[in-house]
């Protein structure tokens, strides 16, 4: 038993030290959208409500209700934890100055990308829909 516990301890230490390969995230929109590729700052501004359009093109950002994916996206695009993100939107919402993007399930968001040329959302890079246009890739 003692031997097993010590092996578990060593395995835990090794796993903590092992490099974790974070999965890439892609920002996607409708395949026929004329929108050019975005940089990280533009994507952050769009999802934080600081911009509603780019180059005169109106865009509708959509948040994903999967908290792990959402946390990964905001960490990659704006260096923000979910706690800081909630605080950020609480400041705007409860002062009556804005509202966050709608938050829906991933499959519904992808479906909306196909129907709305202004819709923009994020997915894991390994699951980019075949007929979507990629605007940005984030590590």
């Amino acid at each position, binding site marked *: 038993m003692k031997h097993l516990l010590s092996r578990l301890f060593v395995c835990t230490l090794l796993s903590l030290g092992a490099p974790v390969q974070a999965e890439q995230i892609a920002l996607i929109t409708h395949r026929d959208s004329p929108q050019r590729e975005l940089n990280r700052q533009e994507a952050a501004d769009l999802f934080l409500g600081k911009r509603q359009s780019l180059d005169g093109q109106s865009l509708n950002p959509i948040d994903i209700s999967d908290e792990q994916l959402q946390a990964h996206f905001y960490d990659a695009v704006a260096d923000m934890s979910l706690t*800081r993100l909630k605080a950020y939107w*609480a400041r705007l*919402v409860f002062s*009556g*100055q804005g509202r966050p993007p709608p938050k829906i399930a991933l499959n519904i968001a992808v479906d909306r990308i196909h129907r709305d040329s202004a819709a923009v959302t994020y997915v894991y890079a390994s699951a980019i829909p075949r007929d979507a246009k990629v605007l940005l890739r984030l590590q």
Partner: protein
Amino acid sequence: MIRRYLLILTLLVPALAAKADERLMLSGFGTLGAAWFSNETADFSTNTQPIGPGRSKTIDFGLDSRLGGQADIELGKHLQFTLQGIIQRRPGRDFKPEVSLAHLRWHPVENFSLRLGRTQDNSFLASEYRLANLPNPWVRPPPEVYGLIPLIYEDGLDANWRQAIGNGHLDLSLSLGRGDFSVARSNEAGLEAVDIRQTQRLVARWQGGNWQAKASYGTRQLSYAPAALQPAIDMVTRIDPASGAQLAIQDVALQTWTLGLAYDSDDWLLMAEWAQRRSVSAFADASGAYVLAGYRFGQTMPYAGIARRVTDGASVSSRNPLATAIIDEIYASQERKNITLTLGLNVALTPTVILRSQIDFIRAADNTWGAGPYNNHAPDYNDQHPPRERLISVGVDFIF
């Protein structure tokens, strides 16, 4: 009655948020707090609170506790309506619901928006969301600064212009409005009405990366007849009519200046603010400032701050010795001067629930009535040598 039902609806409907249409967003916030104050000859209260921990209550659950609900409705691509209701202890010691936001927001272009209706004073870094405390680092805003402008709700319009500058942006806001509110009489039942009209305020805020800087200048017409001061003002008026007229708080121009700077990253939080108010009247001029620093260890953030409040002296004088003595007494009765050291610890249980604890060490200057929020002084309150006090607060802030 209709307004009450509307408010109750606003407070209850967030429970139905999951089923709401995307054009309707329902949300809410709340704080459950408890506070203990070491002084038993005065209460620690805030501008809108009639009592607090200390003399009136050993442990007070009403100082910081509140519940708010909000409905945001998209009326069109560029038009939004916001209604926010709140339940908290009011100056009359009741818990009747109040409308804390009710406005139309029109944003015809990306850089410009206009709000018409009820908004909240935006002079300070955190003044527009001080009621929903979750985004803030403290149990309550430092009263040394935030207590200088007691009006929270304003009815009118404000225009906002945003300009991108480098990696950040500058927001300019012009507010025009008015507001009425009540304050509780010290040591007495009953309320005193405060009427504020013709508010004009310009606010500039720059945000870039993790930095934010804010400055504001505001002026408004203040009318207020405090029962504690009015007999003395009337006496001066009989002796020296010119000075008495200056003392009267009737359509007095009250000017305010504020400056704020904040840095907020995933690790460090730094905040500093300064504010000053001025008028030519019996209403004492005052100024205050604070600095606060916190460091996030994951979901836990210890923080420390220091705040100072001073009453800046008389704005009205007289050549008549008797009138001068009375005027001196009017200002002396409002003398508040203190330094507060704050230590606190926040633990984010989830991104929407934060557990808070805070201790304030308050040192009031000799020959003053203590810190700004001291109220309901007992006859044996030691104003010559106010003792050093401790205020201990715990609470939970949440949003939904």
